[in-house]
């Protein structure tokens, strides 16, 4: 298979650190607003029914918890000194992170600061330490989201095969591929294979769309 030599053009971009806690503060505010809206929704729907076996106790408890936690998160973001955007530099995250929660989490995490190895999240939210530091790029995920939206909206009118093939090629391009021919050569057979595999093999109906299938 041909190599993907051109995907790394992004590495040339300057690795400028993003202004520190602004993103997290925006997130905290959004979380708080969302929590308040959901709490209000639950409160209105409950309409005075707070019985312990009724359907509205759990929603009220959960949304209240949400609001409290969002407020807590927001407060920690304002109280801590600015730190680099988390995933940008994992090395520093390890040392600054415990500070973010010392105040309130001290009870349950008594020795968070004494663990020198507290680096990686279990879900791969951070890169291994040996990988280069680079800026977060917002354009590719935004484009990808737009492509996904277009894909699902085209699925019914254009049909599975056509929509998938076009989406696949667009998606590969957004993710850095510059080899049209290879992408098309993968996308088209794949789309047909899935379509026939599902409709004939599993009897799951997929939209045929404009192609005479």
């Amino acid at each position, binding site marked *: 298979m041909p190599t993907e030599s051109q995907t*790394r053009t*992004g590495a040339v971009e300057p690795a400028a650190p993003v202004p520190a806690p602004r993103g997290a503060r925006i997130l905290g505010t959004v979380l708080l607003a969302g929590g308040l809206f*959901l709490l209000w929704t639950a409160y209105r729907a409950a309409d005075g029914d707070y019985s312990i*076996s009724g359907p509205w106790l759990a929603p009220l408890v*959960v949304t209240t918890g949400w609001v409290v936690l969002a407020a807590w998160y927001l407060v920690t973001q304002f109280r801590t000194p600015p730190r680099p955007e988390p995933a940008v530099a994992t090395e520093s995250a390890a040392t600054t992170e415990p500070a973010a929660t010392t105040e309130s989490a001290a009870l349950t995490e*008594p020795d968070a600061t004494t663990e020198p190895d507290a680096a990686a999240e279990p879900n791969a939210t951070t890169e291994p330490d040996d990988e280069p530091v680079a800026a977060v790029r917002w354009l*590719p995920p935004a484009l990808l989201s737009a492509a996904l939206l277009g894909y699902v909206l085209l699925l019914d009118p254009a049909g599975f095969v056509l929509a*998938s093939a076009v989406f696949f090629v667009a998606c*590969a391009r957004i993710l850095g591929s510059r080899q049209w021919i290879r992408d098309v050569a993968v996308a088209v057979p794949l789309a047909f294979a899935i379509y026939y595999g599902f409709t004939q093999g*599993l009897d799951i109906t997929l939209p045929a769309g404009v192609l005479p299938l």
Partner: protein
Amino acid sequence: MNIFGDLLGGFGTVLEPQYLLYAAIGVTLGTFVGVLPGIGPALTIALLLPVTFSLDDPIGTFIMFAGIYYGAMYGGSTTSILLNTPGESASVATAIEGYQMARRGRARAALATAAIGSFVAGTISTLLLTLFAKPVAALAVEFRAADYFALALLAMVAVTALVGRSLVRGLISLVLGLFLGLVGLDELTGQARFSFGTLELLDGIDVVVIIVGLFAIGETLYVASRLGQLPDRVTPLEPVKGGFGWLSRQDWARSWRPWLRGTAVGFPFGALPSGGADIPTFLSYTYERHRAKNKAEFGKGAIEGVAGPEAANNAAFSGVLVPLLTLGIPTSATAAVMLAAFQIFNVQPGPQLFDKSPELVWALIASLYVGNVLLLLLNLPLIRLWVKVLQIPRPILFAGILVFATLGVYAATNSVIQVLIAYGIGVLGFFMRHFEFPIAPVILGAILGPMMELQFRRTLVLSNGDLSVFVTRPLTAVLLGLVVVALLVPFLPRIVARLRGRPATAQRLAFGEDD
């Protein structure tokens, strides 16, 4: 000895070439389907149900179904390990360490421990099913709503280690999961909650949709935002070091105990009428983490964290068959579909099944053994092929993941709206990764939250609102006592130290570790 005689008879049936072929077809088909996110064994078997009409062969059908189940479970863990895209809740725990192993070039070892662990757990639990089906079932139906509530609470407390390094972020993730679990019709009263007037949200948000969104789609968006700093290929592969089945001697030494412990937790949970396969995988993961000598390795690809959950997952299936075969009680989606299949062949699972249709039952049980062996035989050599997935250029690989994720949700729900919900959750997953929120608590909240709420309220309705039922039943009281203990354990060193008049030392026993 009677049991063994019957079992031998079962083997006699199953080892006919035509049935071996069915088993092989099942395992292969299951593996391919399991690789697709969102399409699990239940859907596959449901779709093949009409086909079984024409097969006209109940034994062959069930042999194939057992193969599909095992294959799908293994296929699901393969993608969890290689690509961090679990397709159903039971393989989320595997993804945590498995994907980290793959990132560090240890994909072969992770896949091998998963395959061998599944085989070991499958074989032991099938043996347990063979010997103890009836007594286990009799115990399992003793569980009442109050006990299920206590059990769910215990599981929730036990697995809080997944909350991760930052308490507030972990709890926000958990609350998010709890909230997603609330959306839709309330099961007890039929009232719509957080559906905002739409019919689409009335059935709630399927855990599979949440998983596909958070993992497959969220991960892809995250990768897209960090293209510049990633190498061309996903993961370099560590050279094979020798040792049988791609496991080094050390890997074997570290894997076998988690396999056995995973089996021990998976089988009984599967046998509970409200158990299932996902909770024991999380429990096993947490437990392995506690026991690990080198805790720092957890979160960076500890093989125990793959071996345990995979074994638990597979053991749970034999557990699920206990109430299905002995009482006709399906405890998972797959079991429900298998029950439907039984009925098509005019076989009613229940107390009399072993007497009325011994040939079928023992052939089914024998086919579980055979399915396990076949799975191992097919998959160990296939590891070589699977890891090739990691050699695919990144744009092609992730474009493929997005197409398959969309396909999985669309094929399972036939609804563009559900796909959009999965996308929305995917965007959420992207931001969670960006701001370092852990993902696993969301899944946990969405699974355990509804179970806790429902069983709690059921208990109160059944007892006419009397809260004392939670302490008057011995089983419930014991389980709730364990909850208290689990909550206190992390503080024990501190409490003991304080009692002795010394400041707390930096050691904890349970959760909140350095992940």
